[in-house]
Structures are given as C-alpha cells and as structure tokens.
C-alpha cells in the first residue's frame, strides 16, 4: 500500500506530526544559532580588528618617537613603509603635537584616482577632534581610523634628577609630542564579515539538513512499533483514520477487557483461597497422623531397646548360669571330699575317745591290781577296735578334708577373678594367661572331657582392661569352640606380645564356619543354634567389648580344618 505524503498524513498521523514538530524546532534553533554565531563572530572579528589596529598604532607611535621628536620625515618614512605593505592599511599619518603633518603616506594597494588627499588643516581639525573627544577610534563610511599619541619622557630638570631619577625609571615624566593615525580600509573588514556570514550560514544549513534527516529517521525508527501496532489493530483504516483515535478506541476496549479480566481473576482468586484452605487442613491432618506415627515408632523403639537389654541380660544370665554350674560342680567335688570323710572320721574319733576313757579310768584307779585289770581291758578294747588304725585314718581323713577345703578356696578365688562384678567398668591391669586359665575353670567339664587343651602362653605383658568384660569375651569364644568340637578335639590357646598389643589366639579343631555365614557371625541375634539354645548375642557382645577396649577380634575359618579367633588388645588404654 502506498504511503501518503507527510503533508497529507499530517492531520491524522502522530508520526507525521512529530516529524513536523522536529523540523520546525530545528529550523527555529538553526536560525537563532545562526544569528547568535554570526553576531559573536562579528563581534570577535571587530574586536580583533580594533585590537590589531590599536596595536599597529601603538607600535608605530613607539618607533616614531625619535623621528617626531627630531621632526625627521625621512626617519619616519622608514617606520611607515613596513605597515603600508599590509593590504588592509589604507593610509598612515604622523603629526607633531602642534598639528604639523610629518608623514602622510597612502598604500599603493588602495590608491584611487578620485581620492582627495586631506590637507594639513583637515588633519589638524581631526587631531583637535581626537583630543576633544578623547576617542582614539573613528569610523566613517569607508574607513576605520586608529589614533595613538606619541609620547616621550621629559628632560631632566636638574643634575640631581640626572643622577638619581635615572636610577629610578618610574619617575620619568611623560610628554605628548605628536600623534599617529592609521587608516584601515573598511571594505577589507566588510569582506571578512561577509565571509563569516556565508561560512556560518552554510555550516548551519548543512547541519540543519543533517539534523532534519536524522530526526526524521529517528522518529520513523521510534514510531515503527506504533505503526506496526496500528497496522495490526486496524489495517483497513491505518493511514487514513487518525492514529490517536484508533489508539483511543483500542485503549478503551482494552480497558474494558482488562476490567472483565480483573473480575475473572478476582473470582479465581477467591476459589483459589478456598482450595488453599482445604489443602492446608489436609496437610494439618496428615501432620497430626505423622506425629502419631512418630510417637508409635518411638514407643516401638523404646520397646525394642528394652527387649535388646533383656536379651543382653539373658545372655549374661546364661553365661552366669554356666559359670554357676561350673562352680557348683567344682564345689560339689570338694565338698564330697569333706562330707565323705566326716562319718569315718566321726566313727574313728568316737572309738578312740572310748579307748582313751578306758586308759583314763586305769590311771585314776588307786588299786594296782585293779589298774592292771583295767589296763588289760583297755588294751583289749584298743586292739578290738583297731585304735591305732583309727588314728592313721583320722590323719588321712583330716588331710582329705583339708584338700577339699583348699580346692574350694581355689574355686572361689577363681570365681572372684572371673567375675569381678563389683568392679565393673573399672580398668585394671591383669595377666592374660591368668584370665584364660580362670575362664577355663568354668567351662562345662562334660563338654571338654575329651578335648585336649594346649596352652601355648608366650611372655606377654600385663594388659589394662575391664577384667570381667574380657573374661566374658574369652568365655564366649571358649564355649563356641567347645560346642563346635562337640566334646572331642584339640583347643590350642596361644598368647603373644605384639608391638604395644597382646594377641590371644583360640584355635579349635572343629568343622569350621561356612564361608557364606562367616561375615555374619558378629551380627546381633545371628545364631546357627536351634531356637532356645542361644540368643545370638554372644559374639556381637564380645565384638563390642573388644572394640570398646580399642582392640580387634578377627575370625579365620576353613571348613573341615577348624576356626581361629584372634583377639588383640592394647597394653595400655589411651
């Protein structure tokens, strides 16, 4: 579609109006700036011309002092020649203070046949006007004239001035001895001004055209989205109907649409709030349920912990029962010594007591005959009852009782050494060999009846540990070994000192542990025994005890060749 011209679009096109406004503003600004620049340049040029003119006049006055003083025209001629060579200088006049014209030279560049040379009287009148008006710059139709006085210091008044005023240069008094006038052709100045006008005008015009083109392009670029928008809004009326009206209509319809949209959004927002409230309530309920579940889980955990504690306790009780059984067996053996000896001892003592009473009655009789009789009876009694043999039996029985008592004391001591229950948690130095030996005492004698125990104790230092706990470890390992060997085999116990540690090896000749369960033997509640035979905590407790002692417990096993438990403990606890 062909776009109408700017003027035709002006009434109804916003873009056309903006461009037109720009052009008008730029033209006004260009005109104002043109006038301003021309004025400034003209003033500057005028000032420059005046400064230059006065400078020439002053310099001429300075150099002409001697010539004016001596009224030597030839001397002055030389001073003016160089200035007359300048194109703009029209004429130079040098006069004395009395009005005598010493030099009046015209430039050959400006010599015109119709020029009339002013007379000396004319110049005297002009000099009088200069003095009267005290103005050194004159301007007429064709020329500028720059005047400057020729001055010189006065002569000295007396000899003292000659000596001392010459020392003080500032004390010189000045006297006017003449005037110089430099006449400059005004055409030169007007030509300069014309050049300024032309140059400035052309520059401003070019800049204005560039500015208008730039403004037009910029406006078109800026209003491109607007045009595209209008094209989309109303392609039929674009370019013919007023842009602003189209925009206004579109805007109003947009506002109406927005109103209805806001209403819809408000409705949606209210529905959303209800939904959020419902979801919040559901979340609260879920949270409460979670809290309840958490409380249940905590209760369950507590119960499990109690159960675990009970299992640990039962394991302890099993171990204690085993110990008690061992102790009871040992004590029973030693008590048997004593209880079996007591009836024979009682009988022998009673018999010997009666024989003794016979001998005592013989000794108390005063009649010798009777004494002999009684003595025979006593001897007969002693012989009959084998009192001498009884005395030997009493000694043997007492020895047996003593042996029984001694063994009981040993058992009790071993039990004390094993349990140390009253010192639980306390670290004490102990001999590993003694600990193993005391633990072996409590192994069921029936289980180890056909098991040979080889003690291969090395020279090991004492170890600082919790004696009861370590004994429990040893008891667990020994029980497992006995159970594995099923009452027949060899158990080799080796102790040896390593660097800062003591290692105890329990090697049995049992069937070994299958490889698939070997990694699980230290897990809590893991057991290969039948239900009710074991808790599955023995080795896991042992593992924990050794770890608490900063030690290590390692098991190596090969099916058919036996199992070795290696326990290493640090000599000192850090």
């Amino acid at each position, binding site marked *: 579609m062909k776009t109408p011209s700017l003027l035709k679009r002006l009434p109804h096109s916003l873009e056309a109006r903006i461009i037109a406004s720009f052009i008008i503003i730029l033209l006004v600004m260009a005109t104002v700036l043109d006038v301003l620049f021309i004025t400034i340049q003209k003033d500057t040029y005028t000032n420059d011309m005046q400064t230059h003119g006065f400078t020439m006049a002053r310099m001429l006055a300075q150099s002409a002092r*001697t010539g004016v003083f001596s009224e030597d025209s030839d001397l002055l001629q030389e001073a003016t020649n160089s200035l007359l060579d300048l194109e703009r200088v029209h004429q130079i006049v040098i006069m004395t203070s009395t009005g005598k014209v010493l030099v009046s030279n015209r430039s050959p560049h400006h010599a015109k046949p119709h020029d009339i040379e002013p007379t000396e009287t004319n110049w005297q009148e002009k000099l009088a006007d200069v003095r009267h008006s005290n103005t050194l710059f004159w301007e007429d139709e064709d020329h500028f004239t720059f005047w400057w006085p020729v001055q010189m210091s*006065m002569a000295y008044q007396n*000899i003292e001035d000659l000596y001392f005023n010459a020392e003080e240069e500032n004390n010189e008094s000045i006297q006017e001895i003449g005037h110089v006038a430099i006449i400059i052709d005004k055409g030169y100045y007007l030509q300069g001004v014309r050049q300024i006008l032309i140059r400035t005008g052309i520059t401003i015009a070019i800049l204005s055209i560039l500015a208008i083109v730039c403004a037009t392009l910029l406006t078109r670029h800026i209003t491109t989205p607007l045009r595209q928008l209008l094209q989309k809004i109303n392609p039929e009326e674009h370019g013919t109907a007023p842009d602003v009206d189209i925009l206004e209509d579109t805007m109003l319809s947009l506002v109406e649409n927005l109103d209805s949209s806001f209403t819809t959004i408000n409705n949606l927002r209210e529905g959303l709030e209800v939904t959020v409230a419902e979801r919040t309530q559901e979340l609260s309920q879920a949270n409460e349920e979670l809290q309840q579940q958490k409380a249940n889980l905590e209760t369950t955990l507590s119960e499990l912990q109690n159960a675990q504690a009970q299992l640990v306790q039962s394991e302890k009780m099993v171990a204690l029962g085993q110990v008690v059984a061992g102790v009871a067996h040992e004590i029973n053996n030693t008590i048997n010594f004593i209880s079996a000896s007591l009836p024979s001892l009682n009988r022998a003592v009673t018999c010997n007591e009666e024989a003794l009473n016979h001998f005592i009655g013989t000794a108390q009789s005063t009649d010798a005959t009777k004494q002999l009789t009684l003595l025979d009876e006593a001897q007969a009694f002693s012989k009959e009852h084998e009192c001498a043999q009884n005395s030997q039996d009493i000694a043997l029985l007492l020895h047996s009782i003593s042996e029984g008592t001694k063994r009981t004391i040993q058992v009790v001591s071993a039990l004390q050494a094993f349990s140390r229950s009253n010192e639980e948690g306390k670290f004490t130095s102990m001999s590993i060999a003694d600990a193993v030996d005391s633990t072996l005492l409590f192994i069921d004698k029936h289980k180890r009846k056909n098991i040979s125990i080889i003690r291969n104790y090395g020279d090991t230092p004492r170890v600082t540990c919790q004696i009861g706990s370590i004994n429990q470890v040893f008891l667990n390992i020994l029980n497992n070994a006995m159970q594995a060997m099923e009452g027949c085999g060899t158990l080799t116990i080796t102790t040896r000192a390593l660097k800062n540690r003591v290692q105890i090896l329990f090697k049995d000749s049992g069937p070994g542990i299958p490889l698939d369960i070997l990694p699980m033997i230290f897990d809590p509640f893991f057991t290969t025994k039948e239900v009710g035979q074991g808790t599955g905590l023995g080795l896991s407790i042992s593992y924990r005890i050794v770890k608490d002692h900063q030690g290590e417990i390692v098991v190596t096993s090969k099916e058919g060749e036996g199992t070795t438990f290696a326990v290493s403990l640090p000599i000192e606890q850090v």
Partner: protein
Amino acid sequence: MPLLLALLITLLSPLSPAWAFEVTVVQSSMAKPYQEVHNSFSQELRHRLPRSGLKAIASFQENSIYLTKDDQPKVTRSLVLSQSPDLIVAIGQQALAVVSPITTIPIITLLVAVPERVSGPQDNILNCPLTTRPGQALKEILQRLPKIKRIGVVYDPSRSGSKIKAIKKACPDLLFIERPISNSRYVIKETESLAGKIDLLLMVPDITAVTPLTESTYILFSLQQRVPLVGFTAQHLKRGATFAYVFDFASMGNQAAALASKLKKGTPLTRLKTPDYAASRLLTNEIVAKKLGLQLPKEERP
C-alpha cells in the same frame, strides 16, 4: 653631706643635652641612592662615636624624616626644630630646601649638586660634593684600553663648558671631538655625525645633552658603531653602556659621618674641610664589552 647631696642631684637630674648627640636626618626620597647614603652614614657614625652617658646604649640619637611630595616645608621644619638636634643631615635637594632656613643648627648636605642654588651661601651648611674628579673616568678606562685616543662628547657649553675644559686639561693626550648643542633635539644628528670619528663616546651629566630619549640615542650609537660608551649611572650600564663612572654612595655616607663625628668632638663647623670630590668607581658591562670586541685585561676586571 653637701658633697653627697650634690652627687645625688647630678645622678638623678634629667640628662644634659651635651651628653648625647642628637641627629635629625631629612631625606628627599626613599630611592635607593638616598637610602644607601643614609644607611652608611648612620652605621659609620655609630661606629665612630664613643658610647657614653646614661642615654648611650646607642652612641647617638637619630631621628629620620622622609619627605613626600605633599609635605609642607614649614610643618616639616617645625618638626625638625622641635627635636632640637645637634646636627641636621639633609639628603637631597628637596631636603635641603626644607631645612636651609634653619641657621642655628649645623647642616650637612648630601646628594646636592649645587647647594647655593637652593639656600644661598650659609655658614651653617657643609656640603659633601656631588662631582667626580675631572678626567678620572677616562684615566681609569685608558688603563684598561690604552689604544683609545679620540673621545666624542656632546654637551651644552652653557651648562658643561667648564667641566669639559677641566676634563681636557686632565687628559691632554686625548683628542676630544666636541659636539656642542643648545637643544636636546640636536643630539641625534650631532651624535650621528660622530660616526667613524671617535674611539669612545663620553656622556656628561648635562641635562641638555642627556634626556631619557637621548640616552637611547647614545646607547644605540655605541652599539651600532661598536664604540664604547661611558655613562655616569648604573642605569646607563644596565641599558647598554660599556662603562659607568658612578658615585660610591656608601663612601659618601661615610664621609658625612666623619664630618659629623668631628663636629661632635667639638670642631667648629667653619673649620671642617669637606673632600673636593665625591667617592666614585668605574663599573664595566662585561657582556657589552665582549660584544664590542674590547680586550679588557682580566686582572683589571671588577
């Protein structure tokens, strides 16, 4: 007792004027020559006078008055008289004009060329001369430049005729090319007429022959003709003169102090003898001398 009383009265009474030496210095200008003369006078007098009496922490009492153009001579004179000095020192012609009506107090004048023109003959005025020994400048220059024979001089016979005669008399071996003038406007032409005829141009203190404009003429001639110029002030030397025979202002102050000292010691004014000529010295502008091609003996250079 009467003796003790007399001693106390003597000690406690106001100091007698005879015990101190009061000097009032009246100075025409604050210009450098005046100031230099004044300072050297004060220092030399302080050095010469013995210290005595109760007031004699300083050896003498000095009051200074500096004149300006607006000063009323009568008022200044009254001020001087009110100080009742033992001696008045007038430095410069204007100062002498102010104090010359005072006839009862001795006056020593300095930097005054012809005091009689100001005050007329007076018995209480003793003038330190402001003239140099005739021909002395040329004699000193000849010691440095013995080839010089022809001396050019421009002067007004009515003002400097006798002075030129005295110079010629003092230097009989030299040839003087004289250019007498009656107006300063003839100086330029007369000076130019000396071109190629002289070995040295002499400026004399003549107010007809020497003006601010002609000073430039002499200097320009000297430089153009490559002829040494002899001036008589340090300014001449500064502006381009080759030599300057100038007053030694410090020595002039010392000469005045010597006269004042003798006066203080009781010598009558009429019996005091002033020097015939002012102390002077020859200055050389080395740069100009070099540019003029003058061969000055090294040992003689100041």
